[in-house]
């Protein structure tokens, strides 16, 4: 089976996992949760295999490179990182309720990668500027960071929702009660934000090293660079507000959402701005 076929199956597997997580949430039977986790693990295993196959395929074409060098491959890797991080957290906190909020993001990214116009899924040889190991580490770390921020975003949404419900005193005995508590969500927002913050810093540093070798400038205020710095600073603001000014809960959840919007803009939105990078 080709890796493209396999990846389109993975998209459906993630959708199935999402539906099962929803069942778990609404029907409140752990059976559905176990099924959901099983499907999700199967999905990530299949995706890992597909990525390895794609890697191998690039070598068969005579210009082997790690499959994270164009938009399509980066989207696939992004979805993979989100699933990996989510499954680790699920395993750590022994609660499957978050799945219904995080897994659909991975599904949407996979779907976007396969249907969006302008996303080319063929394996392309690398132009000279991209032939660098620093680029590989740059992309890897950036997307691990983005994935962590995505998890923080999912927790933020859930936090606000749950908080609203509890504030109006509506019935929280139903499935809401099975959600992680506000405290756990707050801690999760903080922990995934710190993880993302470190990874994004690593991403920016490795990106600068790459730029240094490729163009002679470790920093050139290109819109993409600038936006990655903006994103990073937003999270720096968030961490300072929490650690030094004691912000918790709702405000953190809001900042996690704002930060995620900035992540999305850094990743996709910047392409709509004029980029200054003109090189071979």
């Amino acid at each position: 089976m080709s890796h493209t076929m396999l990846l389109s199956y993975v998209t459906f597997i993630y959708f199935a996992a999402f539906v099962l997580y929803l069942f778990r949430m609404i029907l409140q039977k752990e059976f559905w949760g176990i099924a959901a986790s099983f499907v999700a693990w199967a999905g990530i295993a299949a995706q890992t295999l597909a990525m390895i196959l794609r890697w191998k395929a690039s070598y068969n074409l005579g210009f082997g490179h790690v499959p994270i060098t164009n938009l399509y491959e980066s989207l696939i890797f992004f979805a993979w990182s989100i699933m990996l991080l989510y499954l680790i957290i699920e395993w750590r906190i022994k609660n499957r309720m978050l799945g219904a909020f995080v897994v659909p993001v991975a599904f949407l990214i996979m779907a976007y990668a396969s249907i969006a116009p302008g996303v080319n899924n063929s394996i392309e040889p690398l132009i000279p500027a991209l032939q660098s190991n620093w680029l590989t580490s740059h992309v890897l770390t950036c997307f691990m960071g983005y994935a962590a921020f995505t998890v923080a975003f999912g927790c933020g949404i859930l936090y606000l929702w749950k908080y609203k419900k509890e504030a109006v005193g509506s019935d929280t005995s139903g499935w809401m009660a099975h959600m992680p508590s506000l405290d756990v969500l707050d801690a999760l927002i903080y922990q995934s934000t710190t993880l993302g913050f470190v990874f994004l810093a690593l991403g920016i540093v490795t990106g600068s090293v790459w730029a240094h070798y490729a163009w002679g400038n470790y920093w050139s205020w290109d819109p993409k660079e600038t936006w990655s710095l903006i994103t990073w600073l937003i999270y720096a603001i968030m961490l300072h507000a929490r650690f030094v000014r004691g912000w918790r809960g709702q405000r953190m959840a809001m900042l996690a959402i704002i930060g995620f919007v900035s992540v999305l803009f850094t990743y996709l939105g910047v392409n709509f701005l004029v980029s200054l990078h003109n090189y071979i």
Partner: protein
Amino acid sequence: MKKANILWSFFSSVKLTLVLLCLMVFLFIVSTVIPQQNIAPEFTWLADIYHSKIFYLLTAVFSLNLIVCSINRWPVTMKQYKSSCFPPPSGLFENLPKNRIIVTDKKMTDIERVVESLLSSKISTWKKTATETETLFYRERGKFSLWGVYVVHLGVLVIIAGALMGSLFGFEADLNLAEGEASNTVQLAKGRGTRQLDFSIQCNQFIMEFYDTGAPKTYRSDLSFIKGGQVIHQGSLLVNHPITFEGIRFYQASYGLAEAGKAVLAFNHAGTESPEIQVKAGETFDLPVHNAKATVLRVEENMMQMGPAVKLNIETDKGNMQLWLFQHIKEIAEVNPGLFSEVPMFNPGLFKPLVFSLKRTEKQYYTGLRVVKDPGVPLVLIGGLMLLIGMIMIFFFAHQRVWILVHQETEGIKIRLAGRSNRYQEALQRQIDHFCVQIQKELTA
């Protein structure tokens, strides 16, 4: 004194930090969304925010804020670092949840053995003090992580210092070299004129390779670095593989078509064809008759839509003569009968007895080098590493302290467990819960 205090507290405020960070974010966003042209004159600084006074001022205030904050904070951290575990923080053992108090009828020595084996691990140190009625165990982990914040903040300052150093003492320039050409004059960026280097760079060869798809695969310039007429260093410059020579770094940045192409021509003398001659505009070669010399005036890729052509000036003792050589002269003459009588210059046999022919013209490329000197790079790199190391210290470790109080009371011996952590409280609480379970298990076993 009062004034100094106000200034000090202004700069040591984290509120200021938050405001500054928000301002920076705002400024950066503006810089990426405003168009670079059509800006009203009073806002031109917006087009080059990163070299504007406002940005420098912001950076300066930010750095000062960071320095003052760190100095202010130092004693607090020092105190935390030195704070001893004895006596434990007041109120530590008050209001403990039920599971944190274990009552047992075991002997004191047994209990101590159990607790000691529990606390022994490679990554943490533990101590104990004992009086007649109680023994207090103390275990500490990740104390060094308290300094992570300083490492991060210093890293930020070092990066700023490195960037400043680069902009003060460095330069950025371009150098275009055609194959075979050498130069020591580089073109400074942003039209700031030129700069002479202490050595020349010669491009011996520029090579491009392409994939089957037509996408570029390699750009490579073979360079020689020449000083005092001697080649001191030679190397191949590739994208992503810069060459450093005397503190100046060279990058493969671009390439282009050199104005002067190369022409390959030959002439026929009494029925025998001469070997091919490769010439560029401005070059001269000897002809075997009349003591003549030919100079190439122009090399054209596509002269008047008639394909590749070369203009020659032929100099003899009797005077000069100019002629155009077209590669496709046969075809041109076929569609324009009578061409040579109308335009004798186009006749390849005009200079008797030779008949010239233009075999082809070859494009000639120049390689575009980026020439950079940035003495701030090592600082920025060190700053970046500090940033990463500091963040790992902060976020992947925590200063965790656990106290276990074993106390003789009327009901028997009570074991109380409590802990403090500067971060990730939940993780520590989970660990203490785990301790409680372990102790119960060991004691009942």
